[in-house]
């Protein structure tokens, strides 16, 4: 581990996994500023939009992961630097050839219905449940050759071939452990238990009034003695952003997260003395936003034109004036919060003059209205700030002679047109999942050009990029993967298949007396078993 930002997930770090944990606990307590945890109190917060279901794996929307992360748990959780830490697995080891992972479970893990959670539940969840329902986990779990439980507290996975980022998949947001006794042999998607999630997490679902609130209560048989500290968590469903801001301002809720508060309201809350505004806790997701470009349409297929577009956009302006400093400007296709980000691979900087020169060089001269080319841009229907972004982009591109016609749509329409390649440009953002093989590769390799959203819908083809991603995927050594990803980043910033805009983050705003809110690389998705109200 030479680079401090790049903890290797390889054997060395993994073997140290259990040992590293107590050190991180100290960090947690430092965050609590030396205040001893206090038991009691109910956390009132907000969830937007309301999740349709709370069964992780069957539904994987952001809000589902946030609430479900309290009800279910994974084998590991991830530190802010995305090192695996013990959760349901107390410790683990990896064989020298990188193919055999042996997990030892915690003592006394109990599901909310009182049944014990054993190695059988883990094997069922990993090899059957998530393989069947969860598109994200499936791609990785199919690398498992066999899964065995030599005893009720030990699980051994043998991979077909080494897979360096394997442990990342065992966070609750990707592979939650579900009860075998309720799901085995059933139709998982239509299981009658889907309205009453049963997990091992510190909180169980107590009441859900649709359109009103989700109430979680303490799981009395939680495997960590004396925890969780909170008596419960109430997620209120508040659809209007101004009503949400008001609820936080008046203290009716003590915390907001994800999309609850519009970026332009954040400065107002930063100024309130009783509130803390955190923007960390999104390291695993590190959503990267970009202008998605359909390479099947001229002149968008020309790398020079795309580079001119990139030169026309002031990403600092976007980060500071539209997102008010929540998140940071993108520099490459691999976010700086994930391993393998190469700071020396930099996309074209903001330089409208250069953009104009490139367009001149392409023979695209301005007409009488100053227009060199016209493109359409489908707006991302995820709220006000995204509309403002499109409007900014229209203006910025018009400055260099590219006229942009904005098209509006709703979520269903947007996904459909994106999936069917029926767009010229649009805004998109995609989670990175802590490793380029898991979250970045899918956007750029030609084998993933599919009529499905969040694949290589741009239609970008570069054989060299394909080869580098494929090698990095199968390479067991972290350092060798780093070299491959550096190379692929340099290729991509030269080609500009997409115009990257922002490494997004979402503000978590909470009362200062609420402690230990963000302690992991998944932030508000974590179990909250250590969150408490200081008196």
């Amino acid at each position: 581990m030479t680079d401090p930002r790049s903890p290797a997930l390889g054997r060395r770090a993994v073997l140290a996994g259990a040992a590293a944990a107590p050190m991180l606990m100290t960090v947690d307590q430092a965050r609590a500023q030396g205040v001893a945890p206090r038991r009691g109190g109910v956390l009132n917060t907000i969830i937007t939009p309301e999740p349709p279901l709370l069964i992780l794996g069957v539904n994987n929307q952001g809000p589902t992961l946030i609430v479900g992360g309290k009800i279910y748990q994974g084998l590991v959780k991830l530190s802010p630097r995305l090192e695996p830490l013990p959760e349901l697995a107390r410790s683990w080891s990896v064989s020298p050839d990188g193919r055999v992972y042996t997990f030892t479970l915690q003592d006394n893990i109990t599901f909310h219905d009182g049944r014990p959670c054993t190695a059988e539940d883990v094997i069922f969840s990993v090899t059957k449940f998530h393989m069947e329902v969860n598109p994200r986990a499936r791609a990785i779990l199919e690398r498992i050759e066999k899964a065995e439980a030599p005893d009720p507290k030990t699980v051994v996975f043998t991979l077909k071939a080494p897979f360096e980022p394997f442990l990342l998949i065992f966070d609750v947001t990707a592979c939650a452990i579900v009860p075998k006794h309720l799901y085995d042999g059933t139709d998982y998607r239509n299981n009658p238990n889907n309205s009453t999630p049963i997990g091992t997490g510190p909180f169980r679902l107590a009441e859900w009034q649709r359109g009103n609130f989700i109430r979680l209560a303490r799981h009395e048989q939680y495997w960590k003695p004396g925890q969780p500290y909170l008596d419960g968590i109430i997620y209120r469903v508040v659809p209007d952003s101004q009503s949400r801001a008001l609820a936080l301002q008046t203290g009716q809720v003590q915390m907001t997260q994800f999309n609850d508060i519009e970026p332009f309201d954040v400065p107002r809350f930063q100024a309130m003395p009783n509130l803390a505004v955190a923007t960390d806790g999104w390291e695993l997701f590190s959503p990267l936003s970009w202008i998605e470009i359909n390479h099947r349409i001229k002149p968008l297929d020309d790398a020079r034109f795309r580079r001119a577009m990139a030169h026309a956009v002031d990403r600092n302006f976007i980060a500071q004036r539209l997102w008010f400093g929540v998140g940071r400007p993108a520099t490459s296709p691999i976010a700086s919060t994930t391993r393998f980000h190469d700071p020396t691979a930099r996309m074209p900087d903001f330089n409208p003059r250069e953009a104009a020169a490139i367009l001149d060089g392409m023979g695209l001269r301005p007409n009488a209205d100053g227009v060199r080319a016209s493109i359409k841009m489908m707006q991302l229907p995820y709220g006000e700030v995204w509309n403002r972004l499109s409007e900014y982009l229209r203006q910025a591109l018009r400055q260099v002679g590219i006229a942009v016609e904005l098209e509006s749509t709703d979520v269903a329409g947007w996904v459909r047109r994106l999936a069917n390649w029926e767009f010229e440009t649009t805004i998109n953002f995609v989670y990175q999942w802590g490793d380029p093989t898991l979250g970045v590769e899918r956007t750029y390799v030609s084998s993933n050009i599919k009529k499905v959203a969040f694949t290589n819908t741009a239609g970008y083809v570069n054989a060299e990029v394909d080869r580098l991603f494929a090698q990095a995927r199968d390479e067991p050594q972290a350092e060798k993967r780093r070299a491959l990803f550096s190379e692929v980043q340099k290729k991509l910033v030269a080609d500009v298949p997409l115009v990257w805009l922002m490494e997004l983050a979402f503000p978590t705003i909470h009362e200062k007396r609420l402690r230990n809110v963000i302690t992991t690389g998944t932030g508000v998705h974590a179990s909250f078993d250590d969150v408490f109200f200081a008196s």
Partner: protein
Amino acid sequence: MGAGALAAFLAQRTVKAAFVILGVVVFQFVLIRLAPGDPASVIAGQSGAADPLFMAQLREQFGLDRPLWEQLLIYLRDILTLDLGFSHRQQRTVASLIGERLPATLLLTGAAFAFALIGGVALGVAASRRVGRPADSAITVIALTFYATPIFWVGLLLVLVFSVWLEWLPSFGMFTVGADLTGLAHALDVAKHLILPALTLGLFFLAIYARLARASMLEVADQDFVRTARAKGVPEGRIVRVHVLRNALLPVITFAGIQAGQLVGGSILVETVFAWPGIGRLAFEALLARDYAVLLGVFFCTAVMVVVFNLVTDLLYAVVDPRVEVA
């Protein structure tokens, strides 16, 4: 009007109503399928991850892999047995989803309706009795203001004044979650939460009823039979109540009938601003999620209510004004 005539009237109207509702259902079914995208694409979009197998699995689970006419036939067959279907997205029956929201919706729209109707007619009568005087002008101006102000703006102002400045009333929700109140305490708690949304929703309609009632009262007050009553020495209060008001109510009832039919539909705007767990939001969110069964279920319930209230309105005419016969 005999009982036989009434029965024949009801039977005839019911048959007509059934065809209207059937037409509405088929029309809506086709209409919402014209919106681009489907529930599977929404789920993929909201999850930020998908593969072709996942999309195919979802479409099969939702029954979207069958031809459209077959889906329509299945839906019609279900609806004839009063089965509103199943929301695969939420893993709940549509009937239970609607049933869960219905009490909150009826409480809000009912309270707003009663407030608007009673308050509006009272204001209208008061204004008509003082026509041209300052009280009349004041009522007219207030009514016009509420009529012209966008409903969400009224809501935000009320919240600002009563929740933020005065801190008298909660700004959102239907009751204090987690307080576990029961009986009278619970009822009072709900009432406190109800005041602002009901006022917001009611003020617009109050303005309409006030203006309708005032105009109608003035028109009737000029007619010969009122002058005759006055000449006969009937006390003024009785003239207003029996002779004028009763006749002036017909246009008010017409409008109230239309509004009552929409009570079940809820109000998307007010429910959104006040986070009220009503049917308007359920329908709106179902539309965005392309949760077809839920959306059709809400449409079906609303259509039934409109038809029923049209019928009730027609019957009420006959009660208020004996010259009107049901036919």
